[in-house]
């Protein structure tokens, strides 16, 4: 039987990696991801997990080692954050283009300069277009669950794409929470062994990541993109199976008190819970407000988003990243694009807040929602609204 224990979320992530019988972990320690790999190296050194821990000299090497490991058909895990994710950037593309399944936990962190080890989504947005499946977790249980879920999705031979599991730096990684740790048999019966269809094998040699001149590059990229866009049913199916097996269900877009809501606030990641507190307060005051949580960031859940916001007048989107010189925050821009073709759609108002680990308190969410309702009445907001900066 599994058991519910008080545990730091980072350690719970490592425990999940252990329960998945991971074969290879290649990682470089970087704040706020450090506790995940530290604990994994202990688990492996203590013989609790029969895996290879590759101590690499940088994140670029971590991802490169993971590429080789996944290509060999080994169940592969890595974790990183902020600058580390940026350092591995070019190799991150290879994993998805070569259709190599692996799981990477990203302890979301702001980017330098100025140097900040605290959480926001700047690192995520810089790898937005790398072709990885990307999910956001709101709490520790979700982070634990999504490691197990991610291996099954990534290795599903109808999918074969790598998965990033995003958990906010410090807000999740360094918090002790009561988390239900599943037992091995239960995880084993959910997660079949990795059956990578074309592993590197001297008896049956193949070339991976080969060269492509202009005459074929477009066809390959289109094939990759068609495949990526067609995996949504398998992603959803895996969540459904997870729900049946473990009793905790997830969806690409989730809502909180959203039925009959006139104004919705959209969050991604750990601030979802704080926003929910604000929603409760405003509901008690009689305001028809609700919440939309974007769990699946890539592939973007267009249909699910449209369904979730149908009927609302205003949609306030919180971004924890600036798209420099661009149209505000990346999430708000995508949400606007996703809804643009709808004949009836809510007014989308985008705010940027919570940068570099700055807290957003429930009262500030309330103020954000109240301001959003006013701004939406004007029909649009300024292009880039950064909240909370002392001026």
């Amino acid at each position, binding site marked *: 039987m599994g058991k519910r224990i008080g545990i730091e979320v980072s350690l719970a992530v490592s425990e999940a990696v252990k329960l998945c019988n991971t074969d290879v972990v290649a990682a470089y320690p970087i704040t706020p991801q450090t506790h995940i790999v530290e604990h994994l190296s202990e688990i492996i050194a203590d013989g609790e997990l029969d895996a290879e821990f590759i101590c690499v000299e940088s994140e670029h090497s971590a991802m490169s080692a993971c590429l080789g490991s996944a290509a060999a058909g080994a169940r592969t895990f890595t974790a990183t954050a902020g600058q580390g994710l940026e350092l591995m950037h070019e190799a991150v593309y290879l994993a998805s*283009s*070569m*259709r*190599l399944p692996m799981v990477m936990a990203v302890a979301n962190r702001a980017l330098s300069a100025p140097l900040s080890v605290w959480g926001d989504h700047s690192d995520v947005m810089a790898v937005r277009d790398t072709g990885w499946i990307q999910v956001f977790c709101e709490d520790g249980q979700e982070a634990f669950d999504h490691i197990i879920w991610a291996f099954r999705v990534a290795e599903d031979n109808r999918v*074969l794409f790598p998965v990033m599991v995003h958990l906010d730096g410090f807000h999740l990684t360094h918090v002790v929470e009561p988390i239900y740790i599943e037992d091995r048999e239960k995880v084993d019966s959910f997660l079949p062994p990795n059956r990578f*269809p*074309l592993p590197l094998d001297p008896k*049956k*040699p*193949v*070339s*991976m*990541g*080969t*060269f*492509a*001149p202009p*005459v*074929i590059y477009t*066809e*390959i990229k*289109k*094939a990759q993109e*068609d*495949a990526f866009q067609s995996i949504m049913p398998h992603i959803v199916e895996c969540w459904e199976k997870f729900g049946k097996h473990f009793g905790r269900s997830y969806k690409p877009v989730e809502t909180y008190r959203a039925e009959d809501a006139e104004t919705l606030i959209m969050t991604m990641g750990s601030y979802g819970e704080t926003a929910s507190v604000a929603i409760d307060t405003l509901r008690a005051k009689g305001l028809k407000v609700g919440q939309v949580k974007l769990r699946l960031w890539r592939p973007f859940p267009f249909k699910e988003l449209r369904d979730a916001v149908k009927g609302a007048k205003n949609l306030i989107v919180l971004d924890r990243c600036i798209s420099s010189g661009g149209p505000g925050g990346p999430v708000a821009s995508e949400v606007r694009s996703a809804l643009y073709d709808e004949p009836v759609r809510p007014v989308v108002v985008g705010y940027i807040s919570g940068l570099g680990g700055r807290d957003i308190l429930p009262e500030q969410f309330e103020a954000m929602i109240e301001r959003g309702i006013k701004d939406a009445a004007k029909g649009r907001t300024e292009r880039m609204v950064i909240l909370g900066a002392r001026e």
Partner: protein
Amino acid sequence: MAEITVKDVKTGFIVDTPGGAKAYRTGDWRSQRPVYDQDRCVKCGVCYLFCPDSAIKIKEDGYVEVDEFYCKGCGICAKECWTGAFEMKPLGEEKK
């Protein structure tokens, strides 16, 4: 290769035929080609060693020949041949 469509692309663009790059014509990049003067050739094999596309073959008699399918006209053979047996000429002017 030009006929490969999106449907033909294997998952991950894996190449499962060893040596598959052999079928790739590097020769169509060429804007100049090496013109060989056998009389100056001393059969040393330096050009054969230096050609980055393995486009130079050594014949049975020890003289060399250029495989047009792969020769991309880089001029390395002409530069490295110490007897000057190769001269690079723009396409269309080779015969002059």
